[in-house]
């Protein structure tokens, strides 16, 4: 499954970067993620609830960040397992400044699926990926508009 998307956010790269490094924010904006816990340097434990067409399941597993380029992006590696199959995704995220106070967030990568997830979810995968991408950016924008808790 290919995962690609791009969107211009109304915030400078530094602010977007700060949000991308904040586990609480990530848990709120990444669709499906219900919990994200730091377990080490750039290593996290993640719990997710995902529905793909006819199948849905609770996923758990690790999330690691690598190739960390401050204010420019990183590569995220997610390995999740569930009773309906496992997912293994690598996604590169790039931040590019667009004029004053705007950032283009681009992500590009792919996910490898196994088990029932691969067997029955395949036909709806691109649709699910598009929906999740849309949700991600919508959540991001909502998060940007939300006043920071102090």
């Amino acid at each position, binding site marked *: 499954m290919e995962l690609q998307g791009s969107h211009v956010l109304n915030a400078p790269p530094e602010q977007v970067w700060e949000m991308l490094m904040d586990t609480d924010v990530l848990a709120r904006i990444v669709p499906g993620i219900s919990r994200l816990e730091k377990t080490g340097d750039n290593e996290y434990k993640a719990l997710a609830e995902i529905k793909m*067409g*006819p199948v849905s399941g609770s996923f758990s597993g690790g999330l690691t960040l690598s190739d960390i380029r401050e204010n420019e992006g990183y590569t995220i590696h997610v390995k999740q397992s569930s*009773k309906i*199959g*496992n997912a293994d995704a690598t996604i590169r995220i790039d931040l590019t400044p667009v004029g004053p106070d705007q950032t283009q967030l681009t992500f590009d990568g792919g996910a*490898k*699926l*196994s*088990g*029932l997830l*691969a*067997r*029955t979810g*395949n*036909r709806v995968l691109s649709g699910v990926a598009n929906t999740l991408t849309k949700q991600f950016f919508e959540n991001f924008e909502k998060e940007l508009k939300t006043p920071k808790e102090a």
Partner: protein
Amino acid sequence: MSNKYIGQSVKRLEDKRFITGKGRYTDDIKLPGMTYASFVRSPYAHARVNRIDTSAAKDMPGVVAIFTGDDIASAGIVGVPTGWQVNFRNGDTMKEPPHPLLVPTGSTVKHIGDPVAVIIADSREAAFDASEAVEVDWEELPAVVSAYKATQEGAPQVHPDAPGNLAFDWEIGNPIDEVNEAIEQSAHVTTLEFVNQRLVPNAIEPRAYIGHYDEVSDKYTLYTSTQNPHLIRLLMCAFVLGIPEHKVRVLGPDVGGGFGSKIYHYTEEALVTWASKQIRRPIKWTETRSEAFMLDAHGRDHITKAEMGFDAEGNIKALRIKTYANLGAYLSTFAPAVPTYLHGTLLQGLYTTPKIHLDLYGVFTHTVAVDAYRGAGRPEATYLLERMLDLAALEMGKNPVQLRKQNFIPSFDGVEQPGYQTQVALQYDSGNYHGVLDRAVEMLGYDEFRQMQQEANQNGKLLGVGFSTYIEACGIAPSAVVGALGARAGLYESAQVRVQPTGKVSVFTGAHSHGQGHVTTFAQVVADKLGIAMEDIDIIHGDSDAVAFGMGTYGSRSLAVGGSAIVKSIDKVLEKGAKIAAHKLECSVDDLEYAEGKWTVKGTDKSISFGDVALTAYVPHVYPQGLEPGLDFSSFYDPANFTYPFGCHIAIVEVDKETGRVKLKRFIAVDDVGNVINPMIVDGQIHGGLAQGIGQALLEEAIYDENGQLTNGSYMDYAMPRADDLPSFELDRQVTPCPHNPLGVKGAGEAGCIGSTPAVVNAVIDALWSGGHKVKDIRMPLTSERVWRAMQEQNTQILHS
């Protein structure tokens, strides 16, 4: 012998039961104290099993027992065997790695769904829930799914002791030098590289098994959704569990379709039987549809390059073939035989080709086993030959009908004229190949069609016609021949005809009906042979305790082999009956004739009925001296040869120029299956076979991704043929009796599936050529996208993945 039933379309006696929901399938059977099994299966195509933790599952409600591969291994059970041996061309024995019932820790799973543990619980739901609580530490390893790629340097290895992933390499035909020379000297060589794609068999009833060990009798009973109960008993007892056969009863109750996929001895059958003794309770396992897609042995999956050489007049001079046959991760029961003895031996087709050579590689991959699926090897051979013939005709600007006719083997009846010896080991029994082609072409109206095709083209439509003339080896099989070819069993059939004291007849057959209508067809034969009513006959099958022995139903063998065994027993009944009748009528046996259910003294009105003779046999007060009482005979029939049905199929398609959508407009099938007992049932078999063959051409394919995940394992994604994909079939029949069995029948179960696929693809290629798109091949299934792309790319071949 009377002619009241044979040749009549008697309505199927079993259908009232089936269509009113009264069928009794394995899953319908409930035994006291029954438990239910669910398997923990690999989500990966290739992974090492580092650790299995069943502690959480053990405490789940309703769980009775959990077994892992380590338990099976310590019980000394190695795995399920294969039934055929094929040797490497250098004489080495094929690689036959073990196929464990459950993969033990430290070992590797080899296809998705490969099981590592089984949960047995009080309910199916409890078993499912607990199987989800088993934690397995998988170490994912690289996988290979393509038979060609698996043989290349550096490919992931499926079994450590099968280097290059080769189970065997094999060849058949004339010496390769002679074939090479004939190809080089040919005026025209048609070359085609193609894929015969992998198919899922899709029986409507998923597999289901009940293992039941009874402590009191110290006997096991296995209820199984199978095509051959005795074969399962033999394999399971002698090769897997080491249980003596007389301690095991195998029952195959109503079975909802098989198409080959239920011939084989599967790991789950042995597992529920073994585990039932461990827990002293019956265990039922019913496959989910998702498991059926993933685990029931798939069909086809060949990658082939073929070259056919012609002289300047269009006579075939040579055929050279290289094929990679995907066998999956483990060798299933018939798997080694399918690409070899059921495919290589059919490459003569209907033609006099003097030089043929097949170079074949049987390859392990990280996919589920590939084995016989309706037609089994013969559809692959027919597809190859018939695609070559139509393509050669297009390339050489010849009429495809004429090209076939000039290369056909001349007609022979197998009685006056001898059988036809092929270059690839077989001897055809009888054939009239011109007859079926001429009739089908007459039904088509060849010249009118070509005119229509031209007019359609001018009106912006693409019409095409595709031809296919096939032959198949059925009535499987003469034991001595298949033994020489590597079969580890004989392929005869048994039948017992038990005449009851009242003259009613119970017939026990080793054939097994799972949709074929044996209860009706066999009763028609018995009724006419004995001159009694069909209602007085019961056909019993599917019970290893009731039926002496049997090899089951596949390879279009039931009537040709099983029916012949019944006839042999009837002959014995009539022979003994005549002695009793002669005694009662005070005449000699030679003075009697048997007709319409009675023995009559020739030239008189003195007679005795079949029922009276039966009663006398069981109440032998006035009885021939020295003759045993009773009227009950068993027979085994081992055929002298395969039977060779043949036919001609013609497809007419319309291809949408804008979208590439293929519409099948007409389908003509003229089949010669020898004598016909029940025309309606034969038509039904042809219809079903055509739907499956057309399904392969246009719709079906099992698709594994590069990691070995089956990506279309559900009916949402796997396209089965539906009524609206098919036209109303135009059928006709020719009858060339089989010269070597008493009924003269050849078998009809696979014909439709064997002949139809290339006819459809040829028709699409013809349609494209008529529009100026000189495409050689489009990879099946011919989806709109593939056909559209082929039209855009003109002459280039669509390469296989």
